[in-house]
């Protein structure tokens, strides 16, 4: 659910050292994937929420994230064609466009974001965490690839808490289903010490990521916690959590952000440093990827900075205190999966957003409701009303899609955003007077 730095936006954006490092990390990863048929390295397709990257690394398996491939297809202008291919094959216009983009990419040769062919999966690790569509997605891929599937069902936090039964259910699946399958596919035995070492690295990287995300409490915010932060969460949400590369990346990123704060700088935007912070906004919902740069500019041109976002929590809500705990390896992975943002109940999501508005001193919050994602979108109008009522801050609501450009109406969205920012200005003036 996070872009690599190969997209159009990043080509023209300023590049910090950490970005260059991330780009190198990703390029190396895709090189390994491309060479996997020759080197014999095993790979595993899986999802961002509830990913078990440390466990895969402990088996020397390479993760492939179809969601990220789909969003990359959106950023590279390929998704319209891919979606069209899938719809011609009978996939409904009503369903998730990540799925259709992925199917279309597969049917077009499975060329990944770096232009290299992705290997067929040795395993589909179906981590059903917070999104029912994942189940169907991998049932569809299984029909294409005829490869094994390992299902990890993560129960939903309907009552806002993780119970012992939920944790035990996930641990039992890890121990009884997932690990034996990984042993079989990789041909390697489960090495818990190795897993613990990865989890220890995860926790270190998570500390630094949280520092970066929480730097937005500073005025001016040195980061954009929605558009900019999708790059920051990239390594930790995807193939690098649990690696020393991720630890180095986040240490470097933290240092850069720390320096921006010291210098009183705002975030980097598509046009360079943001000159002045006019509006501090909390954002709910995933971004649109087909017009990512244009969408971002609609904010930055108005001096609007995202100070917190929920999308950057789909791969883990670290800023609320969760850290991977190497002393309880399976339990901590279970808790990680259970705690991902889209696995939270609607009341818990409302609590989190309200807290963000308050803690980050936001002027308001915006919901980008995407057609593709019922997990996010169903209930967002209720969220809008509740967060407005609780926070006393005005909410805005725009609609788009993840990777289907047919559902990104630039003029309409821009018009709505401008009106929203004007409203914030008027409210601010009213408060002053």
């Amino acid at each position, binding site marked *: 659910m996070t872009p690599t730095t190969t997209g159009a936006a990043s080509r023209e954006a300023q590049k910090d050292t950490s970005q260059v490092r991330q780009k190198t990390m990703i390029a190396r990863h895709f090189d390994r994937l491309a060479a996997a048929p020759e080197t014999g390295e095993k790979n595993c397709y899986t999802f961002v929420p509830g990913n078990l990257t440390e466990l895969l690394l402990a088996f020397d398996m390479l993760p492939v994230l179809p969601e990220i491939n789909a969003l990359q297809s959106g950023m590279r202008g390929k998704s319209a064609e891919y979606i069209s291919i899938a719809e011609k094959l009978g996939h409904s216009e009503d369903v998730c466009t990540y799925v259709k983009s992925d199917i279309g990419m597969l049917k077009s040769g499975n060329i990944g974001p770096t232009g290299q062919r992705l290997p067929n999966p040795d395993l589909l690790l179906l981590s059903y965490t917070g999104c029912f569509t994942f189940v169907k997605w991998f049932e569809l891929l299984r029909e294409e690839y005829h490869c094994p599937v390992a299902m990890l069902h993560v129960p939903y936090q*309907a009552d806002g808490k993780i119970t012992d*039964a939920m944790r035990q259910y996930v641990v039992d699946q890890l121990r009884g289903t997932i690990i034996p399958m990984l042993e079989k596919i990789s041909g390697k035995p489960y090495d818990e010490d190795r897993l613990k070492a990865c989890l220890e690295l995860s926790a270190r990287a998570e500390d630094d990521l949280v520092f970066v995300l929480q730097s937005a409490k500073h005025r001016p915010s040195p980061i954009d916690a929605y558009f900019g932060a999708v790059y920051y969460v990239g390594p930790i949400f995807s193939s690098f959590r649990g690696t020393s590369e991720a630890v180095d990346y986040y240490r470097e990123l933290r240092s850069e952000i720390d320096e921006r704060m010291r210098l009183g700088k705002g975030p980097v935007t598509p046009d360079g440093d943001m000159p002045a912070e006019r509006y501090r906004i909390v954002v709910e919902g995933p971004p649109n990827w087909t017009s990512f740069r244009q969408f971002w500019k609609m904010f930055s041109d108005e001096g609007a900075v995202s100070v917190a976002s929920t999308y950057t929590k789909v791969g883990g809500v670290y800023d609320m205190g969760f850290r991977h705990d190497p002393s309880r390896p399976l339990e901590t992975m279970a808790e990680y999966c259970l705690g991902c943002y889209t696995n939270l109940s*609607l009341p818990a*999501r409302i609590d989190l957003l309200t807290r963000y508005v308050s803690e980050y001193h936001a002027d308001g919050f915006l919901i980008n409701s995407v057609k593709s994602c019922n997990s996010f979108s*169903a*209930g967002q109008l209720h969220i809008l009303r509740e967060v407005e009522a609780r926070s006393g801050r005005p909410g805005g609501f725009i609609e788009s899609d993840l990777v289907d450009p047919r559902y990104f109406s630039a003029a309409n969205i821009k018009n709505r955003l401008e009106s929203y920012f004007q409203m914030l200005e008027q409210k601010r003036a009213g408060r002053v007077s």
Partner: protein
Amino acid sequence: MSDLSRLAALVSRADALYRDYRLTAVRDWKSRTGGLAVGFLPIYVPRELLHAQGVLPVGVMGGRDDLEIIKGDAYYQSYICHIPRSTIELGLNGSLDCLDGLLFPAICDVIRNLSGMWQMLFPAMLVRYLDVPQNFDPGIGGAFYRHELEQLTRDLTARGAAAFDADRLRRSIALYNEDRRLVRELYALRRRQPWKVPTHELYVMLRAALVLPVEASTPMFREYLELADRDETRKPLDQARVLLTGSFCEQPPIGLIKTLERAGCYIVDDDFVQVHRFIRSDIPIEGDPIENLVRAFLNDAVASPTRYIDAGVKGEDLKHHMAESGAEGVLFCSASFCDPALLDQPMLVKAVEREGIPWTAFKFAENSGQFQVIREQAGTFADSIKLWSGA
């Protein structure tokens, strides 16, 4: 009263129950018994468990084309299916205020998120998201599901229902076994003689049973079965035998079902109101009754699109139903924006095509009011089957 009159009266009563948004039958039951009534959304909950604690399980299946959605639309974007907005509408307009609780089975993200909204909108109600396992190992998924069911019994007791009692649950399982057996017989009769059991009649029977105690639904099914079977005025027509799939959650308007029948289709199998058939056969009564409910869910449930199919081939269940029903064609009839149905459809289409069975697909919303396009599509489909099938 003649058999014909009795049949007409029975169908008419079922139709009235189906159309009664105010759930008068539930209100009457509550005032008679003083018991709790707990609703459930599609597709399946183990009603036996509620019944054993003296609770009336009530199926809540959304609205129809005659329900004006005033408030419900304010909660949902245009690209979300219709059932949550009509359910919200019914909640906010007081239709469901006789319910002491509402259960939300884990079938999709929309129903899942609705459970959270319901918690906030109706804090006085017992609101339970019934998470069902996608791991079918009895020691793993089964253990989790058992815990969910045990938690539900405790929640019901805390609300004033009778305490859990294993013998009472065994008796409830026996009652629902008989109820389900009769529904299976009705489906079997329709497969053999579809002209005897028009689907629009069968459908209102299934819907009526959602608001009745099992002690009343079982005799209703039995009487309908006997009367329909005996009715010699119902004669076969030259219609195409079709299997309808995709309508397991949001329900099509009854007008759509009638339209399909009038367009020349005998619906010989379907997935409407699937709670009555979600478990395929009798649940054992002997032994640990909760474990029996768990095992039935794990091992004997239909291959719903809401379940992960971990073994076998997608579409095997549909293939079995096609063979069993002698369907000559398949209608993919899904609610608009229904993720489980629409994401499943390409895989099911492949399965149907592997069998060389013709199919067609269309979508509906529960409040659709115009069926002309579907009538033409279904009519053409039925004609093509009659003209070009191997028979």
